[in-house]
């Protein structure tokens, strides 16, 4: 089993040691980072520290030296975003810090994405995300999107105040098989059910997995309205998305 001292980058080592307490997550991250090159660890360190310019420069350099784009994405960027997500969930950092890490992630991805798509490497899955009709709260939804992108999903962000028709149109246009809705108001939560109804009426409910979240939403509400899953925070959103993609693939056979 890898130990924390197998991680060569001091910053990453300290971050994991100080902030990642949950045994499974800690072990997982130590194993991941112990196997990652020190060069990719430096990219991760810069990302966790919110240094977008450093991430940008290191990514460009690594690509120029022939490091595969996929390796930079997985080992440099995605692994680090996991640390960020856990630190946020545990209140070690807050929204501004997460936003700056997401900006750093974006700086790296700007160089990676064109290469990946040119070489035909597919994202994990496409997800359509939006805040429901009448609701303008989007901070939580945006954090979910950052974490989803930070895990390799392609996300189509419909923004706030999204009607059932807009969800329908986006899912059809992008042929997405996964969709997420966010609501922060008790007054707008029913619009999640309205949207799900619209998918049933269109006869395409079985073609898309639907996840829901937001502070007033609960597993119980999610079950009542006929959603496929509920996630309490951005980390759960990612786990849920992965699970639903798997379920979808299994059902497709």
């Amino acid at each position, binding site marked *: 089993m890898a130990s924390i001292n197998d991680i060569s980058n001091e910053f990453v080592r300290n971050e994991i040691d100080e902030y990642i307490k949950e045994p499974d997550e800690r072990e997982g991250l130590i194993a991941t980072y112990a196997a990652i090159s020190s060069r990719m660890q430096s990219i991760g360190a810069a990302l966790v520290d919110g240094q977008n310019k450093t991430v940008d420069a290191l990514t460009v350099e690594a690509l120029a030296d022939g490091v595969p784009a996929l390796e930079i994405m997985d080992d440099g960027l995605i692994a680090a975003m996991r640390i960020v997500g856990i630190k946020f969930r545990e209140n070690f950092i807050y*929204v*501004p810090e997460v936003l*700056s890490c997401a900006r750093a992630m974006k700086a790296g991805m700007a160089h990676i994405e064109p290469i990946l798509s040119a070489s035909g490497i597919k994202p994990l899955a496409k997800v359509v995300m939006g805040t429901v009709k009448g609701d*303008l709260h*989007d*901070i939580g939804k945006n954090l979910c999107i950052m974490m989803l992108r930070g895990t390799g999903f392609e996300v189509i962000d419909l923004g706030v105040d999204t009607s059932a028709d807009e969800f329908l149109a986006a899912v059809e246009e992008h042929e997405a098989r996964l969709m997420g809705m966010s609501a922060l*108001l*008790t*007054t707008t939560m029913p619009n999640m059910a309205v949207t799900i109804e619209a998918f049933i009426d269109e006869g395409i409910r079985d073609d898309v997995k639907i996840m829901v979240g937001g502070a007033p939403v609960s597993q119980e509400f999610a079950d009542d309205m006929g959603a496929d899953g509920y996630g309490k925070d951005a980390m759960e959103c990612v786990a849920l998305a992965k699970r639903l993609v798997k379920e979808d693939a299994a059902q497709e056979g």
Partner: protein
Amino acid sequence: MTVKPMNGRERVLAALRGEAVDRTPVCNPTSVATVELMDLVDAPFPDANRKPELMARLAATGYTELGFDTIMPVFSIIQESSALGCKMQWEQKDNWPTVRMREPIWVEPDDIKIPTDFLTHPDTKCVLDAIRILKKEYGNDVAIIGKTMGPWTLGYHCFGVEPFLLMSLDDPGKTKLCLDRMTKATVDFGVAQIEAGADALTLPDHATGDLVSGDYYKRFLRDLHIELVERLPVPLILHICGRTLDRMEYIAQTGMAAFHYDSKNEPAEAMDIVKERIALVGNINNPETLFAKGPEEVRQEVYRNLDAGVPLVGPECAIPLQTSIENLKEIPRAVKDWHRDHSTPN
């Protein structure tokens, strides 16, 4: 010591000054508007946010129908942002109006301009006129509370939440400059409401633990809030929903009369931190209790606050629009019952 019977206004103002009261006042410093109340007095959203007579009529139900000790005519948090030039979405009867924060109007400190018609714009003037109407009709009996948004929330509206929060990390000095400049809007609108007859002002400034650290509150807002206490000569009620225990120490240092706090914070723990320095108002849960449960659960939350010594009791934030009148009426009822059960026999 027994206190002579008070009316709502006396009771609220005494509690805000930290003085003895005949019983704990009931108030909502944010909003009591509900669809049921809109129907009852024929003053529906969105008009009740834009026409002074309707605004006053809907607000008065907090006293006439619910039996609260305050009247609060500002149901949303957007009146001044509209006057500052933000893009608005007025919505329908069943939802609050909001600012389109995805289309910010300012990027740099120098963009910040308080328009010359800031206080005569229909959406700020509506509030001022509503306060005048309410002052005339109810001003002797019940506390009329105004509302002026703090600069942090104005920052969300005018700069957009994400750009504003990123700026605070990238260039804290610039953020402070922005906050200083936006404070003029807070003060101007506040002073105008005081002149129109407001007895006290709610000051929402959403630097909540759901978004930023307690240290952020201290660095960016504590001193500014101290300054607002000096510039707005009525009792101020700071409102920050969400988790705030980690910043209540700093909030207690501001000299504000009261802090309107959220159910995510345990009453006894909160009282332990602030002690007598600031009067807590709250913290009955909105989405789970007032909206989704019944009078019995509401009563329990009222008792939890009273048992902890919280000096003003009410909902934690703007109540959900579909909240039942029954649940809201239970708040003053429970407060009275608690006092009856706890009065020392003469």
